[in-house]
């Protein structure tokens, strides 16, 4: 939403901050299921025993798209590539940066890098080809 900058999101904001510092993590339950914060319960098994584990350095692009018609929050950024990348036991959705959107491919190895939206100057989860 356009007024997202005025809303604090416990768990998510801290994750973005850590990721921007190169310390991205995921949540892991006692049974080894991975998930993303904010979360109190493992969505796979219901375990409430969740610990922060270090996110793998690289992920693999599972699928992607190049968006030409964005929401108003990304008006100045379009066209941009969105992708879903697997980082070990978690999947993450982000924007592929540092490469022409037309060159993005399934299977590409990427590193997580927090980018800044040209439209809103807000932080955006980015993937840079490794």
């Amino acid at each position, binding site marked *: 939403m356009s007024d997202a900058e005025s809303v604090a999101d416990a768990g*998510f904001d801290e994750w973005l901050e850590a990721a921007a510092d190169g310390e991205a993590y995921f949540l892991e339950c006692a049974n080894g299921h991975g998930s993303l914060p904010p979360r109190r319960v493992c969505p796979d098994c219901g375990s409430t025993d969740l610990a922060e584990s270090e996110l793998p350095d690289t992920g693999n692009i599972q699928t992607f*798209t190049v*968006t*030409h018609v964005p*929401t108003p929050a990304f008006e100045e950024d379009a066209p941009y590539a969105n*992708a879903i990348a697997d980082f070990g036991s978690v*999947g993450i*959705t982000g*924007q592929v940066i540092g490469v022409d959107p037309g060159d993005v491919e399934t299977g590409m190895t990427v590193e997580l890098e927090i980018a800044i939206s040209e439209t809103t100057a807000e932080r955006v989860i980015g993937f840079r080809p490794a």
Partner: protein
Amino acid sequence: MSDVRVAGTGLTPFGNSPERTGRDLFAEASITAFEASGVPRDDVEAVLYGNFMGELSEHQGHQGPLMAEAAGVRAPATRYESACASSGTAVREAVKRIRNGENDVLLVGGAERMTNLGTAGATEALAIAADDLWEVRAGVTFPGAYALMAQAYFDEFGGEHEDLAHIAVKNHANALNNDKAQYQRAIEVSDVLEAPPVSEPLGLYDACPISDGAAALVLTSESYAEEHDLEAPVAITGTGQGGDRMALHDREHLARSPAARAAGEEAYADAGVDAGDVDLAEVHDCFTIAEVLALEALDLEPIGEGISAARDGRTTADGETPINLSGGLKAKGHPVGATGASQIAEVTDLLAGEHPNSEHVDGATTGVAHNAGGTVASATVHVLEVVA
């Protein structure tokens, strides 16, 4: 257990009418449904109403009682919200209430006002059906999310944009006779391929339009229909609902719809039918790829083969199992809160021989309606059969 009869259906034209309020749209649909049913408004025991973006498009929450009032009904009313499956879930609740004996007569439906938001505003409003923190803030739009699934499908099973284009062409062709449809205009494969890209591989003609519209149904118990001598030959004989993880990146499959599969299996078992019995279906084709995923989830096509169904003529009006004879969301339009109920209305009318396209399904006895919410984190499936 009593069959649930569809006593009357009502649809507004779907399309571009930014000045019309939700209450005006739903009033029109309900008037048509009551007139078709022969059921007096006083007999309605509750209103179950689907709507998704009313807070954003009309600054209006708490739409249940508002819509009961608009329909001229004095009865308790509840709004159901499941993104684009909002009125599918309302229908499902209504079916359960009538079956368990709680109610004999219900007004069910939905409405959405969207075009007054403009393209950017509607794109933003639709996007909130996705995970706000992890998808929307990464720039994923509603078409973008389906494009992620389309690319995953191509990578896993093959197929290309041209295959999807045949789905759009088919659904536009089906809408030519439907005077409630937003687009009564034929298109060619080349139109789809040459249209501006929205989220690659999907372009403008792979997407349903932004629409205003409403749908209403008068549902009754079998005993009420018989006591009152209603002409209501079609019953909802099966209902099912499935769910999945909210964000696409948390799903086991990016190129399948397990929620729709679960809903379909439940609905088929409930009705005592299987996919082979299905004569026609209205499926949730908000984007061309969505029709492929729906057909496979409903076992109307084997996994990996739904992509060729329209191209090879299996799902066209004269094919084995015509899909989206109404024109589908693609050509009929997609006022999101109205869509699920409108699909039930279309299937009912097709089976009753009262639809402009009924001639293509002469003798059909079994139809299916599939309604999906968001990127199919929610899905409802209903089986309808001619019972009288």
